[in-house]
């Protein structure tokens, strides 16, 4: 957030922060921008669509309360993904299952049937390979696929940035072997 700092000579100068700040007024904008990426992340983690939708709603409700109570929030995207991630974990614990086989996910495609068949085959192999990875590596790859930087992923997963780099590298190495 921009802050005025009194310089030594008494004149005021503007100091700009690095992280973007989103105010409650732009909450609707944040919802529009982040709703789909967060939904995709939750679905990729294996949440069933109704649960994913519920988690998304709960996440933005909490964001609203948070902004109301504490004012502007730095790194909104990281905050939203972290809350959604923690809610998804709670959901797992509550249900004690990973309902990947119950997914009712719309898989949009404009390909021909043959192309669709090949794509489905590739997707199945990828899903199978991903599911064999340790959970934290899966989470890293899914967050990365939604465009989060390592710093943000580290914040979501409560880990170090270099650890995140190692997990991603190990995950890609394993996937390369599995998908050959």
């Amino acid at each position, binding site marked *: 957030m921009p802050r005025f700092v009194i310089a030594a000579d008494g004149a005021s100068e503007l100091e700009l922060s690095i992280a973007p700040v989103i105010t409650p007024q732009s909450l609707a904008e944040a919802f529009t921008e982040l709703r789909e990426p967060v939904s995709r992340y939750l*679905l990729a983690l294996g949440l069933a669509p109704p649960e994913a939708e519920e988690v998304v709603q709960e996440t933005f409700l909490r964001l609203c309360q948070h902004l109301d109570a504490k004012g502007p929030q730095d790194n909104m995207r990281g905050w939203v993904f972290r809350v959604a991630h923690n809610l998804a974990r709670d959901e797992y614990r509550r249900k004690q299952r990973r309902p990947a086989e119950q997914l*009712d*996910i719309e*898989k949009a495609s404009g390909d021909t049937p043959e192309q669709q068949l090949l794509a489905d085959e590739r997707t199945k192999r990828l899903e199978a390979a991903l599911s064999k990875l340790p959970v934290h590596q899966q989470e890293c790859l899914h967050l990365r696929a939604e465009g989060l930087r390592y710093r943000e992923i580290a914040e979501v997963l409560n880990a170090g940035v270099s650890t995140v780099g190692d997990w991603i590298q190990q995950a*890609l190495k394993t996937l*390369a072997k599995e998908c050959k």
Partner: protein
Amino acid sequence: MKTNAEHPAESMLVLALDNELDRQEADAILDHVSGCDGCRKTFEEFRRLSEQIVNYHQTLRIRRPARRHVLPYVAAAAVFLLATSAWYWMKMSDRPVTQPVQVVAKAVEPVKIESPAVPAVHRVQRRPSHTSAVFIALPFSDSALPLTDARVVRAKIPIEELRLTGLTVEPAPKGASIEADVLIGIDGLPRGIRFVQ
């Protein structure tokens, strides 16, 4: 962070792929990758897998049937609006184009305007008048619209109100008013004015 003197560690390849290195480090890695078959193969494999995961994510959507049902209605509304607009513009283009000066001339005609169609409150006894010959176009009036169905209403208008219309008005005592014929367009907005007194 090289595994040996020549090849960078795989973790460095991933960092370069994800733009997590500074420019100098990234350039060094990419230079090496472009000249080393083994590292290029690994780098390309990591990139292919990363793209595959992103593409996989793009296929994930929560079904939202309600939104699908709305689409036909939105499309129908858009078609209706387009059709209505086209009809309106065709109708308008059939009418003769009226220049602002002609608007004034046409507006002079309606003597019958003080017929029963005019609300009683605005009806004023005809009296020998010193009316100006033509209506003066009000500054904010839109001359592009036709005035074939215009009406004239005679009314007493406070001088201050006249000033608000943008007309230049001589200074007058507070509360003073003037009798005038006001030309009302089909849209219900005043277009011109003709002073009686």
